[in-house]
Every structure is written in structure tokens, then in C-alpha cells.
């Protein structure tokens, strides 16, 4: 980019420095304008429960709900070598980033998005690197990334998140949550979800939310720490097993009246009921630590 701002000295007539003084800034301005990110704003009228798909290799994707029956897509590509396509097919809006030439440098393959959708929209997002942030969307959601982190706030519906190394944070989420990763850390905070299934290999999992009656909460990793916070009023059946790691527990558990657990032959395990045992919590680790701690 910087090379396009350079004007060779031999091109300048030595006798006419005034002309050069005018020409150089003009050229610089032109080159800057042509290389500037092309911000693009598009609007699509949609009916109830629209579906929005986003495919982007790299960048920041921010999705927020609003009260309009409309999808607004503001895209900012990092270079003019890529283009953002946004098109509507019925009640579906597809947004994707594509290369304009065969040899696009990885750094140029980046586009940032700010997207507003109706509350009941369904989202399907693929973003390899960067970050995905979604707030106040109540429809189903499927997010897949490699290195990008995923942040959901006040989401509901069926939330499915899959990353390779990206972290996942879910704050005040409801509905059904399924999350998997290899090395990503999970933070599930102030949830009101009746079904949580979270699995990461080397990442940590923190669950600090409500255990709804008849809810099931399954947290699994290979190494790392699984931590669950509970309040005195919570009610759950708990099973925690770490094959080669530790299980630390602050809950006063009683033998489960609902089901008979057999102590596994391998590893450290803990089974029991807290209060009436209305929710079901299962935590499993290979050589990680499992902490069941009182909520502050």
C-alpha cells in the first residue's frame, strides 16, 4: 500500500517545483481514496423468521436485533481485491465475501460486518478468523469458526457453536445450547437454558447460571478446568468424573433418590443430589480438574 504513495523523483520536472507541489498531494489523495475500504450499506425487507447466512473468511461480524422487519448489512472490506455479496432469496438473505482475483493475499481477505436483523431471525454464520458477536437475537443460531471467538448475549433458540480454537462466551442466553471446540475456552454466564451441552478438548469451561428444573447440563473436556457455580437454592442431580484429574466439591450432596449410580472403576467420581435434584448435571474430564463451587 505504501508503495503506491511514492512518486519517483525523476518524473518531476526540476524547473517546475510549484507544479510538483500541487501534483504530489493530488496523487497521494487519489491513491488513498482508491485504496480506502468501500463501506457498503444494504437493506432487505423480510417477513417473520427470516434466515440470514454469512460466509466470511476473516473479520469482525457484529449482529444485533432491532424492531424493524428489515435486514441491514453494512460491510467494510479490507481491500478492493474482495467483494461483499448480499442478496435476498425469498425470506433469506445471503451475505458472503468473495475474491475478485485468483491471487489475493490473506490479509486482503478480510471484511467487517455490522448487521441488524429482526429479533426472530435465524442466523448461520461461518467466520474463520476475527470475531463473531451477536446480541438480542432470539431465533436459532449456528456459528462455525476456526480461530474466531464467538460472543453471544441475550440469545435464545437453538444455539449451536463450533470452533476449532476460538473461545465462546454466552451471557444471559436461553433455550438450547450446544458448543464444541478443541482448544477454545467456554464461559457460560447468567444462563437460563434448559439444555447445555459443551465440549472442548484443552479449553476451560465455566458455567455460572441457573439450573432450570428438568434441565440437562453436560460439560466435558479432555484437560483444563470445568467449573460450575451453584447457589443454595439450586436443585440438581450431579455426576462428576475425571479419569486422571481431581474433583473438588463444595456442595453438600446426598445420595441420589432418582437413580442409582455405580462408582466407576477408573478415575475420581462424585455423584449426588443437591436439594430436590430437579436438574441434571454431568461433568466429565480425562485429566482435567472439575470444580463445583459456591456462587459468590
Amino acid at each position, binding site marked *: 500500500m505504501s508503495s503506491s504513495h511514492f512518486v519517483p523523483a525523476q518524473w518531476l520536472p526540476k524547473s517546475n517545483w510549484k507544479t510538483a507541489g500541487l501534483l504530489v498531494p493530488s496523487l497521494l489523495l487519489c491513491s488513498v481514496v482508491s485504496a480506502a475500504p468501500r463501506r457498503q450499506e444494504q437493506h432487505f425487507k423480510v417477513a417473520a423468521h427470516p434466515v440470514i447466512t454469512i460466509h466470511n473468511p476473516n473479520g469482525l461480524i457484529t449482529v444485533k436485533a432491532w424492531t424493524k422487519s428489515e435486514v441491514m448489512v453494512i460491510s467494510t472490506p479490507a481491500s478492493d481485491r474482495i467483494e461483499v455479496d448480499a442478496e435476498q432469496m425469498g425470506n433469506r438473505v445471503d451475505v458472503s465475501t468473495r475474491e475478485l482475483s485468483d491471487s489475493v493475499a490473506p490479509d486482503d481477505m478480510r471484511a467487517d460486518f455490522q448487521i441488524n436483523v429482526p429479533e426472530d431471525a435465524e442466523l448461520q454464520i461461518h467466520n474463520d478468523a476475527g470475531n463473531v458477536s451477536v446480541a438480542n437475537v432470539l431465533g436459532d443460531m449456528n456459528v462455525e469458526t476456526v480461530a474466531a471467538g464467538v460472543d453471544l448475549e441475550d440469545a435464545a433458540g437453538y444455539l449451536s457453536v463450533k470452533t476449532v480454537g476460538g473461545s465462546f462466551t454466552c451471557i444471559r442466553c436461553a433455550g438450547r445450547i450446544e458448543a464444541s471446540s*478443541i482448544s477454545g475456552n467456554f464461559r457460560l454466564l447468567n444462563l437460563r437454558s434448559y439444555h447445555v451441552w459443551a465440549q472442548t*478438548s484443552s479449553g476451560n469451561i465455566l458455567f455460572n447460571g441457573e439450573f432450570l428444573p428438568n434441565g440437562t447440563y453436560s460439560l466435558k473436556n479432555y484437560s483444563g478446568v470445568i467449573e460450575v457455580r451453584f447457589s443454595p437454592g439450586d436443585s440438581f442431580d450431579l455426576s462428576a468424573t475425571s*479419569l486422571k484429574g481431581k474433583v473438588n466439591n463444595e456442595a453438600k450432596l446426598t445420595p441420589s433418590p432418582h437413580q442409582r449410580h455405580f462408582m466407576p472403576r477408573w478415575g475420581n467420581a462424585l455423584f449426588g443430589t443437591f436439594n430436590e435434584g430437579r436438574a441434571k448435571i454431568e461433568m*466429565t474430564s*480425562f485429566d482435567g480438574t472439575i470444580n463445583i463451587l459456591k456462587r459468590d
Partner: protein
Amino acid sequence: MATITCREFLSYLEPWMEGERPQDAQAHVRTCPNCSSVIKDLEMIHVEARSWSASERDAPERVWTALRAQLEQEGLIRETIPASVDRAQTAAPRAGWFAGLFPRLPRPVLAGAYLAALVAVAFALSGPVNKRVNEARWLKGTQTSTSPLSAQLNFAEQNSNSYVTRSNPVVAASLHQNLAIVDNYIALCEKSVSEEPQNEVARDYLYEAYQQKADLLTQMTERGENVQ
């Protein structure tokens, strides 16, 4: 004729079962339904025990030898033979050791105990052998199912590596880093499974690690193809 009480009859019980049946005891059994019932039950047990004893052949010599060796090895018994003991006696240690163990027990009890001992011996002897056989079987089963998988994944990995080098460096680095994590878990799980072949938790983690690797290689290949 003077009759006896139920409490007094208890002292007649053992001679009764041996065939000594005094008249006052017989009179008591005739008039007392409770003691009569007890006698009937004992006789039934006696008959049943006899039939067990008759149907079970004596345990083969190797069972006693193995049992003895096992118990000695575990330090539960120790052979202490005084120097003065005749060598002829030491040549038949089983008779002296086992026969001396229950000289005063009633025969039905002995028969039952003998049967229980047989079962225990069978379990004790077959346990380690079965464990080794089962472990080998589990290990072989796991290896049989994972070896071709491992070979296929390694082959796929070579292709994926060439694909992914052309994609975004951040993405490529993340994929490679996580592939290394999964490979490490596979190695650790395989080690656990080889140490404890019947550990189903370790096996589950091993299979899951393979699944993760397959998913990861698929992603790498897809991204490589997209880049192409």
C-alpha cells in the same frame, strides 16, 4: 413319659441328625410342630448337601497345587514344616493341610463349604487368567478398530497440510496447533488404553479424539479447496 421343652430339644439336635434319637426327643418332635418343622428342614438340607457332594468329583490335584501356590505367593499361608516331620508326611501336604482344617465340622456343612471353596478357587484361579485374556482381547479389539483409522487419518493429514498452507496464516496456524493438540490426546489416550484395555472411559476419549481429528482434517481440506 417325661417330655422335654423346645429349648432342651436344641441340645438333641446334632445327635438327632447323626441318628441318635432318644425317646423323649422323639416324643417332643411328635407333639411339637415347630421342632418337627425344623427337623424336616434340616433333613432336607442334609439330603441336598449329600447329593451335591455325590455329584461333585474331587478337585484335580492341579487345583489344590495352584491354590496353595497362589495363597503362599500372596502371603496368606506359609508352609512351616518342622524338621522332625517325616518326609513321607511332607509328600502329601494337601491331606495334612486341608484335612486338618475342618475335622470337627458336620458333613453337610463340609460339603457346602467344599462346594463354595471350589467356586472360590475357580474364580481365584480363572480371575487373573481371564483378566489377562480379556485385556488382550480388549486391546486387540481397540487396535483393530483404530489402526486402519489412524493410517487413513495420517494419509489425509499429509494432503491437508499442503492445502492449508495456502490459506490465511492465522487460520492455518490455529488448525495446525489444534491438530497437534488432538494428536497429543490420541497418543495419551492410546497409552491409557494400552495400560488399561478395559477402561471404557479411556477408549471413549480415544475414539472421540480420532473423531475430532477427522473433523479437523475435513475442515482443513475444505478450506484448502476454497483457497484453491
